[in-house]
């Protein structure tokens, strides 16, 4: 019950005259994370907005790419480092393909932030377990760096990251930093090794044997492909994690981001406004196709 009371429903809407009108934002840097993922560093053209733009880890924005419409993209930077926002995007369809061709100096459109963020307040004082697969590390990168920037408020941190191939490992800069920090266990694994790979091999759930966690003191944040989420949630339930302290994110096709278009309707909830962050306790009450 704790989560449902404490994660407040968050519908963020700055009072623009038009719900659907984006704000221009310039690309200042493009970081190539792997062959499929790029991180775009963006600054709003409107300097006042750029300074005042506030968001929380786990929220997303609707990103406009000229002539290609909009897509929901989760923010991968932390609000503790203001001045720009990072959007990490994997090439998937038409819009993201066009986006990947864009360079610094070009302008995109952003409206938001939208959605319910990670419940950072109920994580305070607890150990944290982050489990990510592929691009799923993008929203978790935001909350991991947020927790790191607020030193002393959280217990031990364990980060597990799974990729398909060693060459698919994204966010290497962040993983390198996290691996060297005291109080953090950061393990990566790949489904299929390539020549020269000396690390773990196997899906991310094979890493349980390599870590020390105490489920009663720990909050788990899980983000990745549906199949990974399904198996990680199953294992965490088996380890007697409280369903209120297992937090995950759901992904659905979205058009408006503000709870109107109906595309992300899922088990009586809207992923855009009721989520995208849900606790396992909440998901149990919903009828979710991919977790059946």
């Amino acid at each position, binding site marked *: 019950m704790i989560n449902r009371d404490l994660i407040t429903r968050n519908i963020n809407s700055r009072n623009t005259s038009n719900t659907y009108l*984006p704000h221009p934002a310039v690309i200042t840097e493009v970081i190539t994370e792997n062959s499929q993922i790029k991180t775009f560093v963006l600054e709003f053209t409107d300097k006042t907005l750029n300074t005042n733009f506030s968001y929380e880890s786990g929220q997303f924005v609707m990103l406009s790419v000229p002539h290609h419409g909009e*897509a929901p993209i989760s923010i991968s930077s932390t609000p503790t480092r203001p001045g720009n926002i990072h959007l990490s995007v994997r090439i998937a369809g038409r819009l993201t393909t066009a986006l990947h061709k864009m360079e610094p100096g070009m*302008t995109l*459109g952003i409206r938001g932030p939208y959605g319910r963020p990670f419940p950072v307040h109920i994580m305070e004082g607890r150990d944290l377990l982050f489990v990510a697969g592929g691009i799923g590390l993008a929203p978790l990168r935001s909350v991991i760096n947020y927790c790191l920037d607020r030193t002393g408020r959280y217990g031990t941190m364990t980060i597990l990251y799974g990729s398909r191939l060693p060459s698919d490992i994204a966010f290497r800069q962040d993983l390198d930093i996290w691996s060297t920090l005291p109080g953090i266990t950061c393990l990566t694994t790949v489904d299929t090794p390539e020549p020269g790979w000396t690390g773990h091999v196997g899906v991310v759930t094979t890493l349980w044997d390599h870590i020390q966690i105490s489920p009663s003191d720990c909050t788990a944040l899980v983000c990745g492909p549906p199949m990974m989420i399904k198996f990680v949630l199953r294992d965490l339930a088996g380890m007697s994690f409280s369903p209120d302290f297992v937090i995950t994110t759901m992904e659905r*096709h979205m058009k408006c981001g503000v*709870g109107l*278009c109906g595309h992300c309707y899922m088990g*009586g909830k809207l992923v855009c406004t009721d989520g995208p962050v849900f606790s396992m306790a909440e998901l149990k009450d919903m009828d979710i*196709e*991919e977790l059946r």
Partner: protein
Amino acid sequence: MNEKFILRKDHLTGFLRKLSKGHRLVAPVRNRYGDLMFQVIDSLETTDLDLSEQAQESPKAFFLPQEEVLFSYEASGGIYDFRPINNSEQTVYFGLRSCDISAILYMDVIFLRSPRDDHYMKKRKDSILISIGCNTPGENCFCNATRTGPFLEYGFDLQFTDLGDRFFVESGRARGDEIFSEWPQFFHPVTEEDVRLQYQLALEAKAGFRRQIHVEPAFSKLRDDAVDTAVWREMASRCDGCGGCAYICPTCTCFTIFDRMESTETGKRIRAWDSCTHAGFTRMAGGHNPVDMKIDALRRRFMHKLYYDYSAFRRPSCVGCGRCVDMCFGGVDIVKFIDIVCAGTRKRTRDSRRILGDLLLEAGLISRTDLEKALSRQADTGEALGKILMDLGLVTCAEILGVLSLENM
């Protein structure tokens, strides 16, 4: 509010002409193909209004157009500019039915929550809603079951009742009262006889429904997850995903958003109707679709309209207009769905012992001796027949569920 007047029928055109000065007038008109549609009326002299029956389409498209420009943009080099567009006009809607008004009230709940939809809000603010109660409900109508008609207590600016040679007109909002006081020359005081006649007509209309649709029992079945998978499968196999039900439905408001490029540097962002039965509705970039379109899409459709919205707003997002019944050529409309779902309930609750026993007998899963043995034990213990048969090892749980689901079809 709740003022009442009489408007003579031969004064209707004059009244509408005055009222629509400076406004657009939208009312039902029969076109040359014989279709009764809401349309913009340019001249009351050359156009005949037709109030004889419910219009084929609801006025949804005037509030949420099938295609609407949200804004225009310019994108060149480092520039990406967005320009808002206003596409609302002051409009008088005349001849709406109770279901149409109820559907607009539902759209208000969706679009005027936080964050509100500015395009919808502007159109709503610019609207005057005048409805006419239904003295004779249509063939497929069931607004009695959804409590959205045939006459309304609120929601309209003015509500008309056809009393033969005159209309009984009542106001439901301050805007309606303003109309009465602005054009007093058209409105005469009501007599006791008028009030009695209106009351009687509204009462008779309630008895005039040809369909009995069990909306609330369907809600209970969906809440209890008691709709058999076989029902969903059957419905899904009959659905061709054309989206007609959603387009014709006055409360289906799901939409998609896309860009329409007009030159290499300019374009418009468009919002257009979408339907949850379309294959691409939940498909994500790259082609992954978390929802099995054949079954889950229909399940979500009916769960949304009859259960989730009922839980959230204490009323289903079906206004009983019956339009989808004529629209769906596969017979997967909401009326058929409710009928199938509730048919199972009635059969089972009427006499479940006899039915389950007979079904198992028919299926050749038990013999008559087995059944009699089980029934006599039931007379002693009062246990459920299915449990007794399972305890005796005569049938398995799967076999019982199997025959029951066949029976539900």
